[in-house]
């Protein structure tokens, strides 16, 4: 029978907490940047200029159809060979996480905007609003409501995706666990604790999303 010993692992609790902090930072940072990329991609896809649509589409397909781990490794190990400049791991990591989630956000945003009846835009234009005013005052408030469940879902995945940063030695939670395991030789306790910590971060988020979705349906 295995002898559980969390005490040894908990000696390094400060490392786990530091890892959680980094995980939270990379999550928030990449979600904010990802929203920017996603909005740009969505509006480019909805644009009347085919060149913009093509660029956005190409970006999205590249990032949606290759694994995030490969993207991170590529940005850190391969890209510097092309541009001749070393890229610090935190920049490569944050950038790839952001571009990756942005490509999915772009589809979520585009879908939300497209789901709004075109009569809404017409009614806004009929009182003299510009396209931008119609988007801001009439279409976006409705579209955001529609896209929120998918957005939260993708963001939950994003929290977990930060764990791939361990591959380029960024000190987030998974990497820290790896470090603690190396010091304590207690993989069962270390990785179990990490799983519990991820769960503790995400479970409230998914519960909030469910609650929010139920509340939204009631007001419809």
């Amino acid at each position, binding site marked *: 029978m295995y002898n559980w010993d969390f005490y040894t692992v908990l000696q390094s609790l400060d490392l786990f907490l530091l890892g959680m902090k980094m995980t939270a930072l990379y999550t928030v940072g990449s979600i904010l940047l990802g929203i920017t990329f996603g909005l740009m991609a969505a509006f480019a896809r909805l644009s009347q200029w085919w060149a913009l649509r093509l660029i956005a589409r190409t970006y999205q397909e590249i990032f949606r159809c290759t694994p995030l781990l490969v993207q991170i490794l590529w940005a850190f190990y391969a890209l510097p060979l092309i541009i001749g400049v070393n890229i610090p791991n935190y920049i490569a990591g944050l950038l790839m996480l952001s571009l990756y989630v942005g490509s999915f956000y772009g589809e979520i945003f585009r879908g939300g905007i497209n789901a709004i009846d075109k009569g809404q835009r*017409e009614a806004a234009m009929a009182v003299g609003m510009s396209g931008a005013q119609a988007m801001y*005052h009439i279409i976006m408030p409705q579209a955001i409501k529609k896209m929120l469940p998918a957005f939260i879902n993708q963001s939950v995945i994003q929290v977990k995706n930060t764990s791939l940063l361990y591959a380029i030695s960024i000190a987030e939670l998974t990497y820290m666990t790896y470090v603690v395991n190396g010091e304590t030789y207690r993989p069962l306790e270390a990785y179990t604790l990490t799983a519990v910590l991820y769960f503790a971060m995400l479970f409230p988020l998914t519960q909030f999303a469910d609650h929010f979705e139920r509340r939204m349906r009631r007001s419809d």
Partner: protein
Amino acid sequence: MNSTIQPAISVRGLTKSYGALQVLKGIDLDLPAGEVLAIIGPSGSGKSTLIRCLNMMEVLTTGDLRFQGQRVSTKFKDKGDAIGTATLRRKVGMCFQHFNLFPHLTVLENVTKGPTVVLKEDRKAADNYARELLGKVGLSDKAESYPSQLSGGQKQRVAIARSLAMKPDVMLFDEVTSALDPELVGEVLEVVRELARGGMTMVLVTHEMAFAAEVADRVVFIDQGVIAEEGPPEKVMKDPSSDRLKQFLSRFNA
């Protein structure tokens, strides 16, 4: 130019095509200020397309649109001697078959959105005027409701108030009763009738022949993308000259 002697809206040589399909094939039309014009015609005749061209909701393929004598361009902003769609649509209100109320806003906010966003009106003034208009369409008690809580007839009356809040010179009604249950048509027509009495310049695309005959000063019959017949309602409705119009009207006189 003096706008009082200019028609409120005039079109010359208007054609509209969607790809290879030509829906409007050369329309000339003047709408004098104060006139109530009814546009009738079979489904697919182009009457909805025509009314949507009058506020540039549809861009004309060829032809010339003028508002109070000024040329209207397809651009949003005014430029040179041509006014843009922004100016045009502030002056020419439109109501739609499916109301298109903003579902995320209350009835009051639906009415004040245009004035506050487009005309930069003060919130309080816009609220006051909106409540006055809601009173006129008989919906004072619904100001804080959401569109989903209203009947079709109530929604359409809110939509009319929303257009009137911009203090338009012309109102366009595109089949505003076609999506309503029969028992709700009357309350909407009553509001339109009241506007007509008040001297509002209006264009109505409608299937309500009796109503068109009652409120319109002039009726235009559109068929296959052209004005096939026009004149005062008593002439057009009671004594049609073309076979196609006779045939069209016979369907309403059951």
